[in-house]
């Protein structure tokens, strides 16, 4: 983007200390998680070495590894949307606990409407995506309105809306299934071929399963998230509100409007959580066994990725990797795969603590840096002794 002439101005020295500080927290958290998990295994007298071997796919065949990679990418795509949705709220101190309900209702409605219409392929998929986003936003909008007009905590209202959404989807699913589904496996009608998105085949991998086509949408969503938050006025208002509501108000932000806007965006992104699987995987329908619990995973990954689009991507991949690797634990190592849940929980807890430690360290070290630079900044000499009108307004010698 930047032209040749302006490039030198935009080049900034990479602050390696900042990079190191940024990496320190997640690495530290991972190490702690590994230690705690190993400790649990030792206490339970399970084979520690074998567990790590299995988790690291040391003993897996090429086909198993390839399969794991694709499954990981697919899970991570889903997790990415969930974590982005949560992160939008987090950036302004809003806790959207309701991603769970939002995506389930959205996926159901998108599946139902997607199966009921027939359109040319790209439009059909677009319609499904738009419906999902609209329904997710609407469901989050209920919590947003309650907060903006009546001051109801979004934590409470979204938790309650989760329960309502679960019941509502169960109720509607029975209606939608009509008499074609057995009571054991209720389902919406299958999406017609025009509403499906073909998977991407990774040629170098030895597996028939494919990566969700909508992995591309996840990447686009991450990019838009970054653009919106870091490069627009709206994003600045949103971040300012999250960092200091009182300062945001003084700067002219209408906090109520921002609450509604942020919740709607969060809900719209949440609506996408179920869509990659819906349009990319058999049975191409919303069924009783549609994956649940992703909203809460999203919260954990948003924390892990520190609300940054790249961080969340790495967090989602790590999380998905652990999930996929855990599947083989029971068979290969004879250890319950819940050990991975323990590890995931430990990672999140330690990462939160580690980030806080790093943040404090950063604040203190910045203060030191400023203090150290201060005599330098004043190197141009103390304020000239010209009395009231003296050279206070004139520029001091600025260090090169």
């Amino acid at each position, binding site marked *: 983007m930047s032209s040749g002439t302006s490039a030198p101005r935009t080049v900034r020295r990479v602050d390696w200390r900042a990079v190191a500080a940024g990496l320190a927290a997640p690495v530290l958290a991972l190490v702690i998680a590994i230690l705690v998990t190993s400790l649990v295994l030792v206490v339970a007298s399970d084979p520690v070495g074998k567990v790590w071997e299995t988790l690291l796919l040391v003993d897996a065949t090429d086909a198993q590894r390839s399969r794991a990679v694709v499954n990981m990418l697919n899970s991570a795509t889903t997790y990415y949307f969930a974590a982005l949705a949560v992160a939008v709220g987090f950036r302004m101190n809003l806790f959207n606990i309701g991603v769970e309900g939002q995506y389930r209702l959205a996926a159901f409605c998108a599946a139902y409407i997607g199966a009921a219409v027939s359109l040319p392929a790209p439009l059909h998929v677009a319609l499904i995506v738009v419906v999902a986003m609209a329904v997710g936003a609407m469901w989050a909008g209920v919590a947003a309105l309650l907060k903006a007009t009546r001051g109801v905590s979004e934590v409470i209202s979204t938790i309650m809306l989760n329960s309502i959404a679960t019941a509502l989807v169960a109720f509607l699913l029975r209606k939608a299934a009509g008499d074609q589904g057995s009571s054991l496996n209720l389902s919406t009608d299958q999406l017609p071929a025009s509403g499906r998105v073909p998977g991407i085949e990774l040629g170098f991998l030895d597996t028939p399963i494919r990566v969700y086509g909508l992995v591309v949408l996840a990447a686009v969503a991450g990019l838009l998230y970054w653009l919106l938050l870091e490069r627009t006025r709206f994003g600045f208002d949103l971040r*300012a509100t999250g960092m200091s509501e009182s300062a945001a*108000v003084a*700067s002219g932000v209408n906090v109520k409007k921002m609450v509604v806007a942020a919740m709607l965006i969060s809900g719209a992104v949440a609506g996408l959580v179920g869509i990659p699987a819906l349009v990319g995987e058999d049975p191409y329908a919303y069924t009783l066994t549609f994956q649940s619990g992703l909203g809460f995973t999203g919260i954990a990954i948003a924390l892990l990725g520190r609300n940054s689009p790249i961080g969340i991507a790495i967090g989602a991949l790590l999380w998905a990797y652990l999930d996929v690797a855990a599947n083989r634990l029971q068979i290969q190592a004879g250890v319950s795969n819940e050990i991975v849940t323990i590890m995931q929980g430990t990672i999140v807890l330690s990462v939160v603590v580690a980030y806080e430690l790093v943040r404090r360290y950063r604040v203190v070290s910045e203060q030191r840096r400023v203090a150290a630079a201060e005599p330098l900044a004043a190197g141009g000499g103390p304020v000239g002794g010209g009395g009231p009108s003296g050279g206070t307004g004139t520029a001091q010698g600025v260090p090169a």
Partner: protein
Amino acid sequence: MHAVVGENGAGKSTLMKILYGMQRPDEGTISVEGREVSFSSPADAIGVGVGMVHQHFMLADNLTVLENVVLGAEKLHGIGDKARRRISELSAAYGLDVRPDRLVEDLGVGDRQRVEILKVLYRGARTIILDEPTAVLVPQEVDELFANLRELKAEGLTVVFISHKLDEVLAVADEITVIRRGTTVASVLPGEVDSRRLAELMVGSELPSPETRESTVTDRPVLQVEGMTLHGADGRAQLEDVTLTVHAGEIVGIAGVEGNGQSELVECILGMRAATGTVRLSGEDVSTWSTRRRREAGVAYVPEDRHRQGLLLESPLWENRMLGHQTQRPNARGPLLDRRAARADTARIVQENDVRTPGIDVLASALSGGNQQKLIIGRELSGDPVLLVASHPTRGVDVGAQAHIWESIRQARAAGLAVLLISADLEELIGLSDTLRVILRGRLVCELDPRTATPESLGSAMTGAALPGASEGAGR
């Protein structure tokens, strides 16, 4: 009684934190009553009799004085009658006049401060550190505080007193230590120096004064407030029928004891609270405008609490330069931020305002108070504002920054800026203002001429006492 004076960022607070055990020194020793000690927590400090009264009171409003005093020190005398007796004894012994069963929320600022002192005494302190104790007091209360401190001294206690207000330091201290950039630059006796000399020691240069020179007041009204009334949640009027006009090139000072409606007045003018009455900006009725629209129309705002309202502490300086102006050039082009222009303009502000920082990517929290405030002043005076609403622009700011801020305001005034100045620093108000109004219980009660007003006459007007040379009822 020992006073420590120095600019903000000179290291006073750090020194006090070390003395009170909140921070550990890298080198050096502390001795109390001849014995060398080392503190790893405030509890250690109080253990050897060193107590601290913070600048910002640490009291729970909804508890009584007794409960506040015993909180965290329940082991000493319990929480019942024994504690109450001990409080009464201390109060009587040191002339503090504290009644243990009153609710803290009913107490005035001076009373609260005495409760803080009592809290420290109750814990057995023999050395009391007071961090800028007079910052929140009116002159009459300052006198009372000093009487209390003399009482403490007479009883054999040691008082360490940190202040910016040099006249006060000279009046009460027995010995003065001046620090600058982290080292002691002078130890003087109050008899040897006057306040000018002392301030020069502090900044290492000659002194500014807040006086404005020739009048630049025009007859073009910029801000017109008519009949502004605001009711609080309890139905009591926080502002009542406030009417005032600020002309281009004029500084209107609002004097008042804190909590008499100043914050509310400012927030209503900025549109952060909805009040009845009209607000006009350059003749246009802006009463229904949002805060953002008012700011875009040229209202600059220096908030009273820069940490809460003026800065994003955990953001870099250049993002803070955008705050409050994020919709305007150079910070934004259309809906997008213009980061490059904002960064360049931040560098300009930093340079022109002598903000001492190694760069513009530093977090705002890393700067000292004076440098933070210089950044805010520079930001707010950028982009040709028509009106500046400045609340306590030099509060908690060192003399050097204070001089700079005064000069900036004066220059802007000369260029035709209308300024509404709210301050607790009476000399600043008298020195800078073209017109002085006094606010009392939400009403503008009188108008004084800054050429004839003195801190004493202003002080008594603020507390509602008889007003020499004041025209009564200007606000009605």
